[in-house]
């Protein structure tokens, strides 16, 4: 059994040696890294979408661990669940942020808004924007080249071939805001998802004067201020020839929808239209 003995001894010595050296070196060169960063990172969705404003989930985790007050931080993808889970790790409280969703504020379909020129350049909204106002009379409206769709990492958008407008698939939307940043015309907005996903908003961003706007697009906001007057909650303001509904004030009474002469105000996910509402608007997301 001599061989066995030698084996045991040599391996044993080797093992102990390794252990001793490792121990001392580890002692000497100790570096502290907050282990909570890893823990927080683990609960994050790892989408690395940048919706939180940090480059990647790890950076966000670092920010969460380092900052004392995390109320400004929000992971839009993970939502409240993720945030409270992360907060629990850090022993902090987190205020529940309202769930948001992206909406497209343009209804300039091919029908509503006739094309007056033809664009023939690279398929990119930004490039087209820097070139000219667009192929219709409305220089604010959607160009239909789909940059927002490309920007969406969650498969929550597609281009409607018929209308030439992007459509948001609500269930997939995580409100990361990538499409909002991508749109050079600032047509897409993150709005409060609303109770039962019901929302009302002005589906137009045209700041031209009424006549010009109407000429370019039949469903444009013409800044007639009728909605502003009828709104019982002062949620609507008309500025720069354009009406805007504050989603924090809107109580979803739908009066403005009926009042709007150009059907520029859209409502989403309401029960089938009562007789009062004459024409359900073409905005999809049904």
């Amino acid at each position, binding site marked *: 059994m001599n061989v066995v003995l*030698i084996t045991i001894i040599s391996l044993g010595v080797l093992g102990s040696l390794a252990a001793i050296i490792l121990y001392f070196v580890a002692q000497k*060169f100790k570096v502290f890294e907050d282990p909570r960063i890893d823990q927080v990172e683990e609960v994050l969705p790892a989408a690395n979408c940048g919706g939180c404003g940090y480059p990647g989930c790890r950076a966000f985790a670092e920010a969460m661990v380092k900052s004392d007050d995390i109320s400004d931080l929000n992971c839009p993808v993970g939502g409240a669940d993720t945030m409270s889970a992360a907060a629990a790790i850090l022993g902090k409280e987190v205020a529940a942020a309202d769930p948001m969703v992206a909406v497209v504020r343009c209804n300039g379909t091919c029908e509503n808004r006739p094309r007056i020129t033809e664009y023939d350049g690279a398929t990119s909204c930004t490039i087209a924007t820097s070139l000219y106002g667009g192929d219709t009379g409305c220089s604010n409206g959607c160009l239909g080249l789909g940059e927002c769709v490309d920007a969406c990492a969650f498969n929550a958008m597609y281009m409607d071939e018929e209308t030439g407008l992007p459509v948001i698939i609500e269930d997939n939307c995580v409100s990361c805001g990538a499409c909002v940043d991508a749109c050079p015309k600032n047509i897409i907005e993150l709005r409060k998802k609303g109770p039962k996903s019901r929302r009302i908003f002005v589906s137009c961003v045209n700041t031209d004067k009424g006549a010009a706007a109407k000429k370019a697009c039949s469903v444009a906001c013409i800044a007639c201020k009728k909605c502003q007057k009828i709104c019982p909650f002062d949620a609507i303001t008309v500025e720069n020839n354009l009406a805007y509904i504050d989603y924090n004030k809107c109580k979803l009474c739908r009066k403005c929808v009926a009042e709007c002469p150009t059907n520029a105000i859209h409502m989403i996910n309401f029960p089938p239209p009562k007789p009062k509402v004459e024409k359900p608007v073409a905005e999809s997301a049904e």
Partner: protein
Amino acid sequence: MEYVLIVISAIFVNNIVLSQFLGICPFLGVSKKISTGIGMTGAVTFVMVIATIVTFFLQKAVLEPFGVGYLQTISFILVIASLVQLVEIILKKVSPPLYQALGVFLPLITTNCAILGVAIMTIQKDFNIVESVVFAIANAIGFGLALITFAGIREQLDLMDIPKGMKGTPIALVVAGLLALAFMGFAGIV
């Protein structure tokens, strides 16, 4: 001249990655960018040379005299694993930027069979200590050459539209295959 042959053989003819199939995991894993490829090459070179030296003496001073050659695998890998961990710990403290650059690769190196493979091959080929070191360095260079070239191609492919099914690993493997194909031209030089 012998050293030249060892070097040419290890780098071109019997390239450790492209014809010996050693170190494939890091070759595929950290070759997405040239810069990480360079980092990995640095780390591998470093560890490979030290490991080869240490295991060489281990073999000559312990295993052979005591007639326990069959402990080669276990003792070599123990040494290499400890060594890697050592390097990692030291690097973290001494040079954080270098650790940032190489650190992520270090744990990978333990399981980089190129290191153990080279250590064992050195013994198999019955090299002396100088030859062993030359051999280790040459293999590290060979590894780096393959890795960095490969990373270059992958970086370029990243900018292109590879068919969906081939994206990622499959196309990387095909590229590696074609590189290996090209390197077969060096056959017979040594």
